[in-house]
């Protein structure tokens, strides 16, 4: 499913293209950065900070999918914390990146999410994020 239907981010800050799969608290999202993406340098190298956003947006797409399945519009979410995000590889414009997320805990309006960004068999980054999810039914957001 196209991520634009699931998350509030819009170009050029929407980095996730498609939600590929969803199962039991887990999901995979796909991204291909164009050469014009704001995080790419003149050689097409993607700034490492993008990995964190990929994990956050992939979870947002997952949550937006669940909201849609429940007949609700996708709610907003905000990144509130990061733990132990290790960056072990470099992405380039045109790479097919897959971001896998797993919901570790969901308590109140908060979610703890493990995520990893891969290109083929190579893991480029992995870590744990904490997100605050706005429930439009409760928070009026």
């Amino acid at each position, binding site marked *: 499913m196209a991520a634009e239907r699931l998350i509030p981010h819009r170009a050029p800050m929407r980095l996730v293209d498609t939600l590929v799969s969803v199962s039991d608290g887990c999901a995979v999202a796909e991204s291909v950065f164009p050469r014009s993406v704001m995080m790419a340098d003149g050689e097409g190298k993607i*700034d490492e900070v993008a990995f964190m956003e990929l994990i956050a947006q992939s979870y947002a797409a997952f949550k937006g999918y669940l909201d849609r399945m429940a007949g609700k519009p996708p709610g907003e979410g905000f990144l509130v914390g990061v733990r132990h995000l290790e960056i072990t*590889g*470099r992405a380039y414009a045109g790479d097919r990146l897959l971001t896998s997320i797993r919901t570790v805990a969901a308590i109140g309006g908060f979610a703890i999410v493990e995520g990893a960004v891969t290109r083929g068999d190579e893991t480029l980054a992995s870590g744990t994020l904490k997100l605050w999810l706005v429930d439009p039914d409760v928070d009026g957001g």
Partner: protein
Amino acid sequence: MSALRKGIEASAMEAIAGTGGITGARRYRFGPGFIGFSGHFPGNPVLPAIVQIRAVVSLAEEEGGKTLRLAAVRSAKFLAPIRPDEDVWIRVRRRVDSGRDICDATLSVAGKTVAAFQLELAEGETPR
């Protein structure tokens, strides 16, 4: 240089001399036309987390005079949203921990801390 980095550099204002172990501090003002607000979010602009971290790395590069890459985010806390035209003070302190280049950073608006990071930085390229 990426468009994001250029936008961050264009948003940099004055620097102040560090004290008490702070190795760098600079004020930034991200205007409503700043590229990082584009699409994040329509009608509700919030400075993306990745912009905040990129700005810290850029300030550390500026202070150290070397190109750096982000090797890890040991921890990051985002405590309040940063809106367009707010004066954001970024303070960085570099140290070495077990041979790793650590950058402790805070972002503050109107005297209140809005984000705090512990980053691991490195010189040189990440292998593809």
